[in-house]
């Protein structure tokens, strides 16, 4: 691995530290390829073909999108310096909006309502944090309580008498289209069925990503790209991010700090509402109480995991969706995942040894050995343990990466204009 790194970075000095300074996209692609090879190797060794099957990938995508959208909401608001722990509440508002309007006027109207409901939640957060200077986390918690209370109250008033619905759920909502890239399925399916090393895995993943994908998933991916372009490539985005880094400097340059914060938090709420709409319309086809199940918080974790950047955030959401899909689909595959964890931890440990971080390396090694021992001494993980997988994975990943993360400088700080 190190030889590849040195040969592909011409300006890099021979010093070992410099060797890791590969251009970012290239480095990520390399990581992805290595991860895929490891995954494929373990699949071949353990016969857990669900590790990379199209079905798993497709399920992972469905589970990742709401987390990704919520995380994107978090990104917008935190880039403008407002911590949004109220994402969960805004998402709940979104699920209800989608369910209430969706069953009567179709999925698109439902989605629009979801976005508007989330946006209203975002505006409440903005009024509290930006205008009144309330602590961001406190306001977020209040919005989470409010979101749950308001939807339960409204569901009792508005859905109780609906046909097939009730106080805790809406009638079914009609589905959105699920297009495929034409001709791809017939080409990839036989390849996947052969279970060849790497080739079948790539075929399975492509098939999961490109066939029978909800139109809203496509929209979500476009929104991530659009957010990147808007926030990093336009003057508007530069101003918005400057508000999150140093509001007083931004103000002195003529940026309307409060306006930008309002816009960012409103967009954040709208995205969280859309995430809720996805859960109601695409993932389950119905509004149900308690449907979000903490995904707003996990979206926030995915964003932190992704270092407050859209690409990283997508990876975080993907990782979470993948482990979640695995635990839902196949206990054998989760068991094989223990071996994946072992391999990953071994790589991390090696890296830490190389960087002479002895304690971190030792901790990593202990966990690696533990997961190997566990793998060898069991045939299958008990059900409840597999449901932990996504959370444990998130914690592990955060614990191993957290110190290199950097959040916007004025994130979470209450902004008070000069003289107030």
């Amino acid at each position: 691995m190190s030889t590849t790194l040195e040969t592909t970075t011409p300006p890099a000095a021979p010093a070992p530290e410099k060797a890791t300074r590969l251009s970012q996209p290239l480095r990520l692609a390399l990581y992805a390829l290595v991860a895929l090879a490891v995954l494929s190797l373990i699949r071949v060794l353990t016969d857990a073909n669900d590790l990379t099957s199209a079905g798993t990938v497709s399920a992972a995508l469905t589970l990742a999108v709401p987390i990704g959208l919520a995380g994107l909401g978090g990104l917008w608001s935190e880039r403008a310096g407002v911590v949004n722990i109220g994402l969960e509440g805004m998402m709940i508002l979104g699920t209800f909006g989608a369910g209430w309007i969706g069953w009567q006027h179709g999925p698109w109207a439902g989605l629009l309502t979801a976005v508007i409901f989330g946006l209203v939640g975002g505006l409440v957060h903005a009024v509290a944090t930006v205008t009144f200077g309330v602590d961001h986390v406190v306001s977020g918690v209040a919005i989470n309580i409010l979101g749950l209370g308001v939807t339960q109250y409204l569901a009792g008033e508005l859905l109780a008498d609906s046909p097939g619905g009730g106080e805790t759920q809406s009638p079914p909502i009609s589905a959105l289209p699920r297009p495929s890239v034409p001709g791809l399925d017939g080409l990839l399916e036989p390849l996947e069925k052969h279970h060849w090393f790497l080739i079948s895995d790539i075929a399975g993943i492509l098939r999961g990503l490109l066939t029978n994908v909800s139109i809203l998933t496509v929209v979500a991916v476009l929104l991530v790209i659009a957010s990147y372009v808007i926030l990093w490539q336009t003057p508007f985005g530069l101003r918005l991010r400057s508000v999150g880094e140093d509001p007083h400097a931004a103000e002195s340059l003529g940026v309307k700090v409060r306006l930008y914060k309002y816009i960012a938090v409103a967009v954040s709420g709208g995205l969280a509402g859309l995430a809720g709409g996805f859960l109601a319309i695409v993932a389950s086809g119905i509004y149900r109480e308690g449907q979000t199940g903490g995904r707003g918080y996990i979206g926030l974790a995915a964003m932190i995991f992704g270092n407050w950047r859209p690409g990283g955030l997508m990876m975080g959401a993907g990782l979470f969706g993948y482990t979640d899909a695995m635990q839902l689909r196949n206990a054998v595959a989760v068991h094989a995942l223990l071996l994946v964890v072992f391999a990953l931890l071994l790589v991390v440990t090696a890296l830490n040894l190389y960087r002479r971080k002895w304690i971190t390396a030792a901790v990593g090694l202990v966990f690696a050995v533990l997961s190997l021992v566990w793998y060898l001494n069991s045939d299958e993980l008990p059900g409840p343990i597999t449901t932990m997988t996504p959370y444990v994975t998130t914690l592990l990943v955060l614990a191993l990466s957290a110190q290199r993360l950097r959040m916007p400088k004025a994130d979470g700080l209450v902004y008070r204009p000069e003289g107030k």
Partner: protein
Amino acid sequence: MNADTVRRVGLSLAAPALAIILSLAITSAVLAAAGNDPFETFKQMIEYAKEPRTTAMIINGSVTYYFAALAVAFGFRMNLFNIGVDGQYRLAAMLAAAVGGAVSLPPILHVGLILLVAVLVGGLWAAVAGLLKVYRGVSEVISTIMLNSITTALIAFLLTTDKLAVQAEGSNNIGTKAIPASGQVPGIGLVPDSPLKVYGLIVLAVIVGFLYWFVIEHSRFGFDLRAAGRNEEAAVASGVNVKRMILISMAVSGGIAGLVGMPQLLGSSYTYSLDFPAGIGFTGIAIALLGRNTALGVAIGALLFGFLDNSSQILDLEGVPKEIVMITQGVIVLSVVIAYELVRRYRIVAQQREVGRRLSEPPAPAAGNDKTPQGAQA
């Protein structure tokens, strides 16, 4: 000076009062919009709360909330946001119930052991988040949220009939083995004419509340804690070991959280089963905010939430969705923090005016009063 004290007390009461009025107004508006008479609704809730049985239930609910809110408040004092109280108390209650059901000891020792297990489990579980924060820089907000979900899975894993649980007779509910009489805490007949007694652990709640007040306000540790919570850098400069403070406060917060399930476990259910109440940790956050993290304020907040929860049970019979109470609770939290901010701004303006007034006066009479602005700000 005296007039100043009166004004200061008035101002600090103004914020919660403003918040409660505001949330009543918003709740009324929502009720009216749905075609219900707000005054009639509130009247019914108060009437229902006056029934002795309901009063006892309100007190019992408040005792549980009190522990949860104190746990959150302790973290807040150190600027730590322990969202994990929910997971900490559930894991603590389950393991304490399992231990309590498995041993037989003399009465006081038995209860003591159960409480000790609960405090230790809660504290250790919270310490995981503390360790992650101190050594790996993981925000406690995220890690405690993850730990909550992990707790849910862990309890589902341990609470099966081949591990810690037994089948309850005559139902399909499973729970830990019932705690024998020696480990139970008898209720107190605090409310006259009520068939329901108040949890005996209300005494423990008062003790813990007192200790909380004493440790935070009157001990060296409390001083360091508040200093580190307000300004970490200044605390470091004056020799406070912030890492250790974070770990200790997280563990203490979790230890108090471990007590949340105890009043119910030792006072009425005697077993941890699948229907043991969940989500109290989140209510604790709201109450801690409402009570401004002080022992007395939190007690009042816990009573208010206990009242809202229990008196709302009558509403369903009257055709009003009882979820309206949750809206009230959410609005209370939001309006109380907004109200505090408004009062803070008013204070600053008032102080500026005061300073302006004194500067324009001849300097002589100001000599004895130069400390007042600082005192008013604290």
